Structures are given as structure tokens and as C-alpha cells.
């Protein structure tokens, strides 16, 4: 299965992935309209210190503890991709409590959202990968 992988050697800490993610999932045509003047809630986030930076998004684990732990049955795994049903999610954040990668964060409304590899939006391939200026994020089979 193709997944998003990061290589911190090439991550520049530019945070473009976060903005590209937020835009790709905004459903809007234009980035400025989608993101201007508001906080963004991307499904990928950059962690950094003085010397390194890298992006973290859902690893789509083969044995996902978040799915097992979801109290609302809102998380599921289909063809390897872990999805959240925002209608079912009540925002209890149990998935945040159990994800060992710290890859999950809620949306603006408090309900969970997560990387679904841009399979559902118009992007076609993960927006973070497409927009990474240094190939620090790749989408491939490993």
C-alpha cells in the first residue's frame, strides 16, 4: 500500500505541507480564500527543534490502535487507509491519547479529522507530497 513517508534529511521546516493540506481539504478553489486570516487545522504537522524538522501525519498502521480504541466506532480501516467518520465522532480524543506518533489532532469544531491520503478530496495524490519543495515527503510503496 502506498503511504506518506517523510525523510527529515530533506525537510526544510517550511511548513508548506501544512498549508497545502489545509487547502486541499478546504474544498475551496483558491488558497487565499480558503486560508487567509484564519488559523489552519492541517492533518499533517511539522515538528522541529534547532537542528531538525520533519512532518508527521497518520502512519496508517497495519494494526491501528486508534481504530481499536475509538469509543464511537468512527474510525475504520479500509484497504489499509484509516478513515474517520466526522458524523460519528464525538471528539472524545481517545485516538489522540493512544496514537504513538502524535499524528492526530482535532479539527476546528473539535471533531476529529485525519490524513486520508487525499483520496477523498480533489487533490488526487497527497497534497503535502505534491507541494513539498524538497521531496522530504513522498508517497510510495515500501
Amino acid at each position, binding site marked *: 500500500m502506498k503511504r506518506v513517508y517523510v525523510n527529515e534529511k530533506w525537510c526544510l521546516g*517550511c511548513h508548506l505541507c501544512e498549508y497545502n493540506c489545509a487547502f486541499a481539504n478546504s474544498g475551496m478553489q483558491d*488558497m487565499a480564500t480558503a486560508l487567509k486570516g484564519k488559523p489552519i487545522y492541517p492533518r499533517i504537522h511539522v515538528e522541529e527543534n534547532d537542528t531538525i524538522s520533519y512532518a508527521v501525519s497518520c502512519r496508517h498502521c497495519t494494526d491501528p490502535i486508534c481504530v481499536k480504541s475509538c469509543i464511537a466506532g468512527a474510525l475504520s480501516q479500509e484497504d489499509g487507509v484509516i478513515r474517520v467518520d466526522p458524523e460519528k465522532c464525538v471528539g472524545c480524543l481517545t485516538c489522540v491519547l493512544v496514537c504513538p506518533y502524535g499524528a492526530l489532532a482535532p479539527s476546528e469544531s473539535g471533531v476529529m479529522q485525519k490524513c486520508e491520503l487525499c483520496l477523498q478530496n480533489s487533490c488526487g495524490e497527497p497534497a503535502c507530497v505534491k507541494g513539498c*519543495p524538497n*521531496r522530504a515527503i513522498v508517497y510510495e510503496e515500501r
Partner: protein
Amino acid sequence: MGVEFIYPEFEVIRNDNRCIACRVCERQCANEVHFFNAERGVMMSDETKCVNCQRCVSLCPTRALKIVKSDCKLRENANWQDDTIKEIYKQANSGAVLLSSMGNPKPFPVYWDKILINASQVTNPSIDPLREPMETRVFLGKKPDKVKRDANGKLLCELPPQLELSLPVMFSAMSYGSISYNAHESLARAATELGIYYNTGEGGLHEDFYCYGKNTIVQVASGRFGVHKEYLEASAAVEIKMGQGAKPGIGGHLPGAKIVGDVSRTRMIPEGSDAISPAPHHDIYSIEDLRQLVFSLKEATEYKKPIIVKVAAVHNIAAIASGIARSGADIIAIDGFRGGTGAAPTRIRDNVGIPIELALAAVDQRLRDEGIRNNVSLVVGGSIRSASDVVKAIALGADACYIATAAVLALGCHLCRTCQSGKCNWGIATQRPDLVKRLNPDIGSERLVNLVKAWQHEIKELMGGMGINSIEALRGNRLMLRGIGLTEKELEILGILHAGE
């Protein structure tokens, strides 16, 4: 202290309707032009620091940025132009030699653009390179003057060492130190994939790149930095650098600040010490001296590797080349005055040397006249910008071209000409780890390969048009060229006819 203010050269134009304050520009600008005003929630900029490298423009996700030349001008004066006056202010402030980078930007004639290429019509029909084989391979090195046979009449095919190139283009010398590790890796990998060569410059060869040795030309220059047995053995050819087109007659100076870590080790000098390459080689004061170094290097490499002598194109280049051709060197590399540099005194860069087109024509003619053209191959550099420049250079008599500015452009360089600052936002001319990592050699080498392959296609198209199916048949074929808007004298030196003739 007087008034030091000089109005910024550039303006950062930010379209506030588009800017989403993502701060990518801020994070990506090593010159610290952009900053976020949290109180007002807007991005701001300090134009005084901008060098117009276009990194922010290229990465801005909403195309909210552009950099334009400031229109704040001094009173117009055809003699005392803005730049001239500001340079005076700068020197009055600093008392220092002005430094610049990359090639001569002044409006000198570009002869390539005044030369036109022929094409076949009706007779000697043109060739379709998509249907017919087309040979762009060249061999660099000393060639025999005539066919030689042994006592039994059998053909003697032993040749002096040759460099085989899949097309007549190589990456010219850029040292590890002046450019980054990742830039070097990009060049090395691309040269290997393309079947051509890249050149270490005078910075030594990082041990990680020994594996690309068969596509590596190593340089021996006046500072002798990084030269040792393994270095010579790792290479495909050795280049003695006598001069550089961007700064003929002077040496090099890589500031101690850049001599850190691997750079220091590779150059074999202590960390933090300035790497000063003397203006001359202190052991070369004549062609005879040069010959000694050429043969020392041949001895050291067991006569298995061609020796290149690189010189800057200067006034008496034809005579110099004639001397080098008799020194035992296999290849002469000539670097024209528009060639790039990581740092050079502005006055030297902009005023010393001659155009490569004229130098090449003069050298090729002189060597032919003296009957020693086959003693050496000629490689020319100093602003080869496109496939048509390559074709014109070959027709003027070159065996191959060196490209460096075009190569760094492919790597992302935007010719802001501030390499000397060490803060290259594109990760090329810098040693700052956070900036170096901006150039991923996976991308860099791919882009170099793309560029050279594209040129190869174009070279084949141009050759096909001329009805030539082997680039060897184009070399020195000046009948394929015509001048336009050139004087009698220029045409005479170039050895070409005017268009219409």
C-alpha cells in the same frame, strides 16, 4: 561618520489580498528580509537585506510576492549611472574592494547571438534525428596526425588517453567549499548518469564521491588544496588550473568561515583558516615549467589519464594556447570573461579578459596554422547558455564545452550574484547546513540530467538540419556559421562570413 544610506536595490511587493501569512517566505529567507508582525497579523519586509534570489517568490503558495527593481533613482546621467555612483558610495563607506559573484553582467557583445547556423535545403538533404542515427559522442585527448602502421602494415590503434563524452558538454570546475556538498553530489551523479564529466575545482574530492571517480575531473590549482595520491588516482582526468575567466590574473580566496568540517578536511587545511590560492602557480613561470607539472601529473597517474590545462581567455590567448599545446597537455580548457565565480573583485570580473567566442576562434586558427591542432582537444566555457551556443562553439572549433552557470541554474540558482555572502537560499553556494539541505541531490541530479538531455535533443535537431549526423563532422566547420551585425574585423577573427555571403 557620514550619511551611509543607500536606497535598497529591490522592492518586495506583497499582494495583501493573497498573502495568507503562512510565513514560508520568512522561514526560507536566510537574509531575513521577511518577518511577521504579530500585533497586526501581517507579513512585513526589510528590503535593505533583499538580494532578489527569488526563493520567497518561488515558494510562496499563493503567488503573493514579487521582487522588483526599485525605481527610486538618482538623477539621470548617462555617464554617472546609478550603479556606478552607488559603488562609489559603498567604497567611500567601506574602503574595501568591491566583491561580486557569478559572471560579468555588463552589456558587452554576446557573439553567440550574432552568429547564425546554417541548414540544408534541396541538396545535401537534412536528416531527421528521430529516424536516423545521430552521433553526439566525442573523445577528448591528443589525436594522431596520420594513420600509423607497423612493419607488417597492420594499423596501429594505440591512442594516448582519451575522455569519452556522450555529448560535448561537461560540468566545469566548482569547488567543494564554494558550492555545497549536495551541489557536488548532484553534479557527480548527473555526470555519471549522462556519461560526461564534472570537475572538482580546487577544493579536493570528498571521500563520499570517490565512487563517481570515473566521471570526475580533479583539479590541481595554485593552492594545491586537497591534492594527494588517492585524489589523482580516483579521477578520470587531471586539470591544471592556470586561470579562470571571471578573474583572470588573480587567485582565489575562500574565507575561513567557510572552511568548516568536511570542507577543511577535504582541502587538507585547518578549520577556520582562509584558503588562499595564489595568483600564479609559484612553480610555473614558463611553458617549460608548465610542462614539468604536466609530466609530473602524468607520471603520478602512469600516463593513463589526460591532463587538462585550463586558462582564462586573455588578449594573447592564441600564443598561450600554442605554448600549452606543446607542453604535453592533452586538453586545453579556455574560460571566457563571462564565466562565473563564487566570488571575485567586481572590477576584475567586469573588465578583465576577452569573450570566449573570439578566443576560441583565434586559438583554433592558430593551432591549425601551426599544425598542432591534433596535439590537443579544446574545451571552452565562460557562458555557454544553450544547445545552440554548444553547436556554434563546436563549429568554431571546440571539441567540447564546459557549463557551470547553466548547471547551477538547473540546480535552482536565480543568479542573484551574492554567492560571496555564503547565504545561498537555494543551498548551492553555501556551507550552512540548514541551507545546504535545501538542495536534495535526488532532485538536483534529475534536473541536471533533464537539462543536458534536452540540450542533446536540440543539438541533434540542429545537426540534422545542417545535414550532419556526427558531431565530429561539425568541429571547426565554420562554413556552417554566418555573422550578423558584425564588423569586418570581428568576422575575420571569428573566421566566418557575414550572413548573405
